[in-house]
């Protein structure tokens, strides 16, 4: 007898696994565990958003809990949106921008126009190309915000900038309806505006 066949005999004498059905209680337990896990995730996971911590369940809930004074004044919401951070990243908390790179919003001739049409277009679709603000020239790119900010957010942030007395701005407020109108008109446009193009548009439109 060779060594090989000897092993085979020993193998056969070992107890063998047999097929059997998975117990029903185990399946039910599995489902219960998955269910509890999903409920727990929904409660505390915040859907992986980096700015959502317990006890908040979603980004929208964090938004609704931002401290807001009552009333129709959009300025507090605008300040919140500005510092979210959105605009503050380039235009800075004091609205002075970055010299040579990003134009100022404080006492800016573009911001203080009588009608906000051009500003709304810039915020919605972004801006690219050389621009002259307060006699100084800038040439950089502003990203579009149409997908991130609602009509109310855009109206609020432009109102905050235009009515910011500390920055020397004293233009009129913007209503969400004005933004909605321009957003609808720009529905099919994806590319950013150039300053020359904006200057051809009447700001009241």
């Amino acid at each position, binding site marked *: 007898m060779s060594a090989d066949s000897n092993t085979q005999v020993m193998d056969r004498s070992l107890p063998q696994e047999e097929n059997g059905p998975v117990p029903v209680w185990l399946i039910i337990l599995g489902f219960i565990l998955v269910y509890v896990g999903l409920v727990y995730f929904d409660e505390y996971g915040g859907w*992986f958003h*980096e700015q959502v*911590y*317990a006890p908040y369940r979603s980004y929208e809930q*964090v938004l609704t809990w*931002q401290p807001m*004074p*009552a009333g129709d004044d959009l300025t507090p919401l605008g300040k*919140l949106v500005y510092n979210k951070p959105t605009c503050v990243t380039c235009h800075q908390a004091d609205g002075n921008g970055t010299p040579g790179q990003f134009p100022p919003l404080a006492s800016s001739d573009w911001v203080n126009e009588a009608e906000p049409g051009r500003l709304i277009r810039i915020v919605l679709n972004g801006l690219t190309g050389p621009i002259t603000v307060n006699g100084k020239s800038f040439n950089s790119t502003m990203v579009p915000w149409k997908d991130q900010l609602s009509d109310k957010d855009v109206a609020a942030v432009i109102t905050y900038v235009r009515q910011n007395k500390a920055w020397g701005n004293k233009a009129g407020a913007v209503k969400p309806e004005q933004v909605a109108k321009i957003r609808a008109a720009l529905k099919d446009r994806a590319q950013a505006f150039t300053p020359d193009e904006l200057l051809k548009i009447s700001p009241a439109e």
Partner: protein
Amino acid sequence: MNYGPLIFLAAFFALATSWFGMVLTPHAQVGHLQPTNTVPDGLTYPVGRAGLARQGLDVYRANGCEYCHSQQVRQTGMVCDVLLTDAGTNQPAVIQKLLKLVPEASEASLKEKLASLPQPIKEHIGRSEAEALVKALAVGDVKAELWVVPVGPDISRGWGRRRTVAEDFLYDYPYMPGSQRVGPDLADVGARLPDVSWQLRHLYAPTVDVKGSPMPPYRYLFAKQKSEHGGSPEALTNLGDHAPPTGYEIVPRAEAKALVAYLLSLRANEALFDAPFTVPSAPATNAAPGTATNAAPVTATNAPAPAK
């Protein structure tokens, strides 16, 4: 049978899922965090720790402070406070209205409140109730405000105004959120106990200011020296039973000064977008008990009142 590949695959799968869940996902989530801005003031947060405080972090680590002190404040929810900021000209009418809206208030207490506005009318209520109350109150020249207030066991102990978020540790390495609480949480200890001499005395002789404190004294962070030329301006005062013999004084070594600088730099209590709360405007701070509870020292045995 050869189970090698199967065991390898199972072990690989187990390690890969835990790596995915505990390393990769958190990294993708908060690995790119940048300084943020306070809301609504728009100031940069956090600012890096000053040089001495940065050295103090190493002292904190070397002495194992994080084994007994956590730096993470938990929050279980948000509630609303309603504040009356302006009672207008017809105060008796406002009082009548308040008696109807807030049945538990007495007329005398309301009159007292109206004398020094702003005053909280109703505290720790739900959002919809608070919004309805503000709407009912703020008619004509009467003005009311809705404040959002974080609540939780740690916050009611006075350990902070809001929960801890990842940004609080942005410039720290290693970050020491701690896992046990033999002592109180230190997330905002710099705002809670800003007195340098109190902190130094507490490190030298913890039981002087906190009766029954289980904290060990860290005497090797201090030096005992002969009191000469009228004494050092840095010498510890009010040491009670632990005072050195006459003619001697206790002065902090560089490590103690660094550690206290680090402790005072722990101020994780700014209102952020991801941890919002209403920041009381300056004049309201004294008048509003709702905020006073947050700022006031706690009654817990090991979190005493700062020397005022």
